[in-house]
């Protein structure tokens, strides 16, 4: 049953994309309805699947597993090539799949008023993208993962290139080429790894791309691991986007239509971090440890640099786009702390960033539809005009800057906490990373203050209410934002709905590989010495001197 549902999740949107493509453009209503129904359907299925993932789901016991030998060059023989359509969920991928499911219907619904031309193609691409994103998270075969990973580029390329803003062509090209070039190198790394497994000293001659097998290679040399890490890095780091490989992102985000930005920030960036978590860490743990401090440094550079860039933006959307650079820096920082709490915080960060940044893009889209500008200086005092919008925006801003009680705090806190206490990184990483909580508040409140507060400022001839009908949010928009706000609160108060199943899976699949390495054990031992330095001079004596209290009382008079 679960297997059927998981396959529906991947294949039905692709099928629906074809159906929508074939519908006539003048039946725009029908196109939207079909898309929304499919979106709601996959959302329900994705959430259901995530809900049914138990902590014990893992290699050998995947939820909804389908393993079908897709390309099998030498059937029956050990030597040969085997590429499988192998999908299944474990507690690491399931929450991200659920996040995707949650964002899909919202993206569809937010496009109803935003997209006015070529709707048939638009919704077809959107649905195709949906199938691809589910596929990435469900894939258990590395090559299948790679295929879906690359496939997601195509619909997004068209979504930016056709329905984007003024610089859409350039943005789309840059987005496609930049990420594609990086992932080709990753592909080379994957091929090497598979070949190394097949033809190495213990190899059987069977070239397989099975995730579990490739995640447990034991005989890679340090040199190989270091280079493989770099190969994986080039694809995933660009996708993250990891400082300093981020320059495609502000452009793509700004130019993309609202739904494109939401899915780009919410899901596609997570493909990079998910890739690091699924590939780099367990496959080449020694390589990851070798590069960990570099990764940590770059992550912090991204946190601070991204935040500073945010502060000087004039375009709200670009500001939020740069905030992704900063936020994903946190996410990577947690991951490369190589502590269970850091990994868990990192995955939570992926989810929370998807929720809060996705929501921010949605709200900004709603403002844009009314005012046709995203210029911070052209807008002001909108709280007076759109109190409901202002309420939502403040909630999501607070979620984004890590206000305790909302989702962002849990991940931000655990990530920094892990960096600080990590034997691989250490306190200074925590200290520098924590400046991000300050800078985050500065740029976000700067934006909020400008746009929502102060005297009312609206561009001439606005608001344009032709598409949306009401000055403040309409019912459809409220319905889009409310679920996100609710999830933000729920994950802030009860993050364990995610982490209870996630943490054991991370421990068994990722941490265990890192802890096996000699490097980690040395670092751990060194860290313990570093923290627990014996005192040079005893500060307090343990002697009990009860008479002191009484005598002191006398002494004063």
């Amino acid at each position, binding site marked *: 049953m679960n297997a059927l549902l998981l396959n529906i999740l991947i294949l039905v949107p692709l099928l629906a994309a074809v159906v929508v493509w074939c519908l006539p453009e003048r039946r725009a209503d029908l196109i939207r309805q079909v898309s929304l129904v499919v979106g709601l359907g996959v959302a329900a299925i994705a959430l259901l699947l995530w809900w049914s993932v138990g902590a014990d789901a893992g290699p050998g016991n995947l939820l909804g597993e389908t393993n079908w030998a897709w390309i099998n060059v030498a059937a029956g023989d050990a030597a040969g090539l085997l590429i499988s359509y192998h999908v299944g969920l474990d507690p690491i991928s399931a929450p991200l799949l659920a996040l995707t499911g949650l964002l899909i219907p919202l993206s569809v619904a937010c496009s109803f008023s935003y997209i006015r031309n070529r709707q048939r193609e638009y919704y077809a691409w959107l649905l195709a993208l949906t199938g691809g994103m589910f596929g990435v998270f469900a894939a258990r075969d590395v090559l299948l993962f790679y295929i879906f990973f690359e496939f997601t580029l195509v619909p997004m390329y068209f979504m930016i290139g056709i329905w984007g803003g003024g610089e859409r062509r350039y943005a789309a090209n840059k987005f496609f080429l930049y990420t594609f070039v990086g992932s080709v190198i990753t592909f080379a790394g994957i091929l090497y790894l598979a070949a190394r497994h097949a033809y190495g000293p213990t190899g059987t001659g069977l070239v397989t791309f099975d995730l579990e097998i490739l995640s447990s290679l034991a005989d890679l040399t340090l040199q190989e691991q270091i280079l493989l890490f770099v190969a994986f890095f080039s694809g995933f780091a660009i996708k993250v986007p990891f400082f300093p490989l981020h320059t495609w992102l502000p452009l793509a985000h700004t130019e993309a239509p609202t739904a494109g930005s939401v899915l780009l920030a919410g899901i596609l960036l997570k493909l990079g971090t998910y890739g690091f978590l699924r590939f780099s860490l367990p496959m080449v743990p020694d390589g990851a440890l070798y590069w960990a401090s570099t990764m940590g440094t770059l992550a912090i550079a991204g946190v601070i640099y991204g935040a500073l860039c945010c502060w000087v933006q004039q375009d709200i959307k670009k500001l939020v786009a740069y905030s992704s650079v900063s936020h994903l820096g946190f996410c990577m920082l947690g991951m490369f702390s190589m502590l269970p709490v850091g990994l868990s915080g990192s995955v939570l960060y992926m989810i929370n960033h998807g929720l809060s940044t996705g929501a921010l893009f949605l709200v900004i889209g709603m403002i844009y539809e009314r005012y046709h500008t995203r210029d911070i200086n052209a807008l002001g005092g909108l709280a007076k005009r759109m109190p409901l919008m202002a309420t939502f925006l403040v909630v999501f801003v607070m979620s984004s800057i890590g206000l305790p009680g909302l989702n962002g705090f849990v991940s931000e806190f655990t990530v920094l906490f892990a960096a600080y206490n990590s034997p691989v990184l250490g306190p200074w990483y925590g200290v520098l990373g924590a400046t991000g909580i*300050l800078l985050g508040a500065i740029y976000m409140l700067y934006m909020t203050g400008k746009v929502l507060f102060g005297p009312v400022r609206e561009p001439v001839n606005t608001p344009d209410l032709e598409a949306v009908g009401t000055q403040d949010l309409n019912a459809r928009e409220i319905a889009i934002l409310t679920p996100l706000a609710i999830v933000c609160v729920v994950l802030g108060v009860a993050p*364990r709905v995610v982490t209870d199943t996630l*943490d054991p899976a991370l421990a068994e699949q990722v941490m265990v590989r890192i802890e096996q390495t000699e490097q980690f054990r040395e670092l751990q031992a060194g860290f313990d010495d570093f923290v627990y330095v014996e005192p040079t001079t005893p*500060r*307090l004596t343990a002697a009990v001197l009860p008479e002191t209290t009484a005598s002191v009382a006398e002494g004063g008079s």
Partner: protein
Amino acid sequence: MLAATELPWVTLFATIPFWPLLGAVIVAILIANRQSPERAHAPVIGGAAISAVLSIVMFFTIWGQAPAADGTHAAADGPVPAALVSEGDHAGEHGDAHGDGHAVVKKDFSKIGTTYTLYNWISLGDAQSLKGAEGGQWLAFNFFFDGLTGMMMLFVTVVSTMVVIYASGYMRDHHMHPEPGYERFFAFLGMFVFSMAMLVMAGNFVLLYLGWELVGLCSYLLIGFYYGKPSAADAAKKAFIVNRIGDFGFALGIFALYMFISPLAQPGENPLDYATVFKYADHLATHEYAGMSQATLVSLLLMCGAIGKSAQFPLYVWLPDAMEGPTPVSALIHAATMVTAGIYMIARCGPIFAASETALMTVAVLGVIGALLTAMMAMAQYDMKRILAYSTISQLAYMFVGLGVGAPDSAVFHVFTHAWFKALLFLCAGSVMHSMGNIIDLRHFSGLRTVMPQTRTLMLIGCLALAGVFPFSGFWSKDEIVHAAVYQSPVLGGLLMLVAGMTAYYTFRMYFLCFHGPTRTPPEAGEHPHEAPPVMLRPLYVLAAGAVLTGFMGVTFSFSLSESVFGIFNPHGFFHDYLGNSTMVPGPHHAGGIWVAYASLALAIGGIGLAYVRYGHAPQEDPDQAALGPLFSLMHHKFYVDEIYDAVFVRPLRRLGDLCFGVDRGGIDGLVWLVAAVPRGLGGLFRLGHRGALQGYALSMVLGLAVIMMIWQLAG
């Protein structure tokens, strides 16, 4: 979990924070359903009142549960529960002339307080909790109950309830119609009371941080309540960001605590729970990290948070601007409760701070700097609310000094009394403002004693309490701090006494300018300025009663001319005994030194007298301005601290942002362009050989063949 004694009705008390939240949620639902705002105050007043009643019950329950005091110590020696031991007289190291020292008093913290866990909030990823096993280490959602909790909750909820009732009258116009945003205001107030209660009741450092940040959010929303005013929007932003600077240090303090405590914590002990941390606080004192004792590091970092939240030097700048919010907000957040959070936190972390002389000294020194600086600023302001704001910072600085000189119980005592009289003063100022048509500048009105006789009386009570005049509450608590400071260092004590005189002076300068002299009202006040309506006056009487009476909670009566004020009032009473059952670590109480009380009383009266001489007739021209000249102007402009911060921190940081963005477009993206240019350039290079000239192709084919032949030959 670790509680030695289970507190009765603890489950009921654990609901205290959630009642005001419920009220706020109900208001939010009313807003969502577009209901009339007329009754929007009711759910929040109800919620706050339920909390207040439960807090009062809790107060007495905790009292009943307190561990019995050791019979060998007389009550006059202060609270010394059985679990107390004292060790290490460090007086000699500091050359303290009195020689009676700062013995660090130790308590057995496993016997103090009750931890009540609602649920486990965040996993810290240790092996047990990963398996979901019992005995895992978590960040729990738990509450901690001890004497300090009981005392803090008592005034937080009661004062808040009074303020909310007052606000239901204040947030209306002259015809008693609700102002725009009335319902939003009450939703925020409810949320604020919830946040503050969470902060006080939290049972671990991260939940404390939650309350800490939530009060920050509420202050952001409430200061920016009139968000259409740019100054209000800016003040709100400033408050949040300056607080975040402190929180940055606070968060690092929590991380460091975990680093030091987690290896010690046994299975089942959450490493960041108060109960666990204080149990192992000794370890922090005896172990070093980064060249200082772990206790010093942790307490200095935690102190950063307290400096931000309690508006201490150098992060006090947000508080005066916070007066942009409606006056009840000023009373609630910026006088009575929110700013006390920092004091509360340091008092709560007694075991950590007491283990570090350096940290305590830093706290005391920052306190005295802040007290002096802001008292000077207060002397040269005309905005009533601003004067009160600076006096708040100054009084909080007193509390800081109290904490720093090892008298946290006195500091909390001052927190307690200050909450009542400062809320009273702010709300009186609010009544004046309400009546004067939102004019609060003292230069625009005077002689209001005839216009608002009740407000005048109430304000006088508040002013006397703030000035520290016997027998008002401020006298007792302030005197205790000065007393402790004098014994620690005469310089510190002397400066505090000076500030006491200044406080009396500027408080009564404000009072005389407002209520004395000829009756003048600004045109905005209309034809007939009026006394505040009963709904606003009644809560003020409750607060006034607090301002008069709460001081006696810290006093016992005994006849002794040498050790008691006026021969019968002996400092250290019920209040201190009550707080004995808490995690605070007070230093030894110095009996005697009653001259301090007389001296500070004399200074207070002297200050009032001087104020009367100079301002008793509410002169149009400010005599101080003429007398002090440029110094007055400097004080009036707050020593240009805001401008200095702007020039030194804000603008360079912003320029760094510009620089980063420039580098991003020019440098980093430029490199990307460069890399992208490589294939294009190579393509251009190869294109040179592909121009369609047949001879060229033939030539290169022949040459290529020749090369291959040559290689073949050589290899063969």
